[in-house]
């Protein structure tokens, strides 16, 4: 799978599977997810997946919202791929088995480099919400 082939869903899974323990993926407040993906869309780094060209954001509030991203995070949640064990549903965590499986997928081209860039931005966005 390279930057030409990867889809939004597959990219979300790659990011989620690489989130280190000290970072927490938000659920209740989706703003960090949307800001992360909007920054990635604007990023001109090598290996940016092609799907970002068509990734659409809604401009209905103070920050952009990607409905497809929101739907997919919820889909990963209600299908049990991710769980929100905490009582407030502030954060989600990825099923460890799936994290291992997704992180082991073969990435090629310049995609691994761009996922590294995504992790840098995720550290900024996801850290801000805590």
């Amino acid at each position: 799978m390279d930057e030409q082939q990867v889809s939004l869903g597959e990219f979300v899974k790659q990011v989620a599977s690489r989130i280190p323990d000290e970072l927490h993926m938000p659920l209740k407040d989706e703003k960090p997810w949307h800001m992360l993906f909007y920054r990635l869309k604007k990023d001109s780094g090598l290996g940016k997946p092609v799907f970002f060209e068509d990734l659409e954001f809604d401009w209905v509030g103070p920050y952009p919202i990607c409905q497809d991203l929101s739907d997919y995070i919820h889909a990963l949640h209600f299908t049990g791929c991710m769980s929100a064990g905490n009582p407030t549903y502030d954060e989600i965590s990825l099923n460890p088995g799936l994290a291992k499986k997704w992180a082991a997928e073969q990435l090629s081209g310049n995609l691994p480099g761009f996922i590294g860039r995504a992790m840098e931005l995720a550290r900024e966005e996801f850290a801000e919400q805590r």
Partner: protein
Amino acid sequence: MLANYPNLSRVTEVLDSYLATRYPNHFGPEPTHPFANLKKFKVIHDNLWGTNRFSWRELLVMDSPILQRLRDIHQTGLAYYVYPSARHSRFEHCLGVTTVASRVFDSLVERQPELFDNFAKTLDGGGPTSALIQRLRSELRLAALLHDAGHSMHSHTSELVYSDIPMLQAAAKELTKLAGHAKNKGKGEVLSFCLSQTRAVRDLLARGQTKLLDGNGTDVVKMDNVSLLIIGRSGHPYTQFLADIISSDFDADKLDYLLRDAASAGLPLRYDLERYLSTVRVEPEYVADDEQHLLRLYESLGVAAKRESAGAHSAFEHYDSFVLRLPRQAMSTIEQIVICKFMLYSYIYHHRKVRAAEGLLARLLRRAVCSWRSAGMGDEALICKFLDLVDPSLHWPEFTAHKDNRVSGYCGRLITRQLPREIFGFVPNMFTHLRAEVIKDFTSRLLDPDQKKRAAAIAEFEESFGRELLKRNRGLGETWEEALLTAGAWLDAPTAPKFENVNLMVGARSGADNPIPLSSVFPIQSWIQAYEAHRYNVRVFAFSEYADDACICAKAAMKHVLKIDDTEFYDSMVKPR
């Protein structure tokens, strides 16, 4: 407004040409409608909303073929195969949305009059507030009336096939840029928008103006505003709340269809509209516009909206706006609406027999589109074709006697309700241990936002399924695809109910400055998770006469996809007769 959007312009031209040819008395070069002078208003009764007044302008649109065709399109598609009384039409829904939208608007005017006084100073250059209110109300009601005008036979089922028309896909992309929010899901909305932009509608309204009984039709509406409201955007950032009334998570569309669908199906689901009306408010909001969609829109409309720099309120350049909000006091109503929506998905829209009927119809329509394309029909002709189709069209020889026996055969089955059965399936959360991860991974691919990836995940199962069917019965066809079609077999993974942008909709307290996300006061994520975990089904369908074979083959195909060697695991997915 459409100058920089060639596909939207072209679709609008196609619709104008279609309307002029198909309905010359209304929209031709020498139209004869309206024949007589118009009454200023008429009263129409509705089983949900009682007695309602409709203006001459609304009656003109309502009595035109654009709206009348909706009488023959069922609001809930083929759900009447499960709920026999669910035979209400898109037409009565559109009238209902019009009534509810103006009730919401009237409630805002009554409870926040100072806001409209301020709008009159800003938007209408100091004109009377009453004139502004009348114009906004008229535009809102017209948008509500026209919001579903682009629907075709059996509503959302034919919308699935709209996705196969590249011109509509391109127009939907342009509409996203024009509106500044994604419009890729419902292509019917593109047609509703373009219909409202036609010269046909503008000319009809202009003729009506001269046919008023007293000749005193001086009030005006801006059709660009009407069209924008249909797609959830207002012509000025201050009046965004109007667009929210037509298209948002707690919009008039939802307020009508939740009650109408439930009542027609005979399901005892309710929510408290009066509480909604007594609490709903207009509140200030900052609307960011980093991609400059709104800048271009307002410039094209000649609207002088002040663009604010990035700062404390937003990290992007933005507009000061006014949006619709439900305060904390409306929480019980919000709960009722959320519950109603979940229940309707579970009971009606995602009912296995409804999904079976709609899946069969979608396959029929896709085959029919292929045959029409083979006969030389292009995108423009297909768009017109779908505007000609209404629910009774299924009984036309065009379908019943179609030369492709899949089309005619499926049509016969639909008419006589010989629907496929659910033979196999799973709820992603029903498994434990190692198997859970495999099935969840598969489901995550079935729900990928990329349509091609979703199709590939489904095809991975269906190819194996079809090949297994062929192994057991060579008479099913030459290829695995034919075997699936003969057996009426497919894998169904519907999209789950959504609550878009729900976190932007709630105020902390009535009139308070700092809105808070709904999820801070109402555990909507946990509700969604808990509900979907038990009610979201991935299903495999097949015609009854092939059910036994199909069940064995579905088990083998699932084993091929999941690569788990455990008979009991697959046996647990079999749906007993």
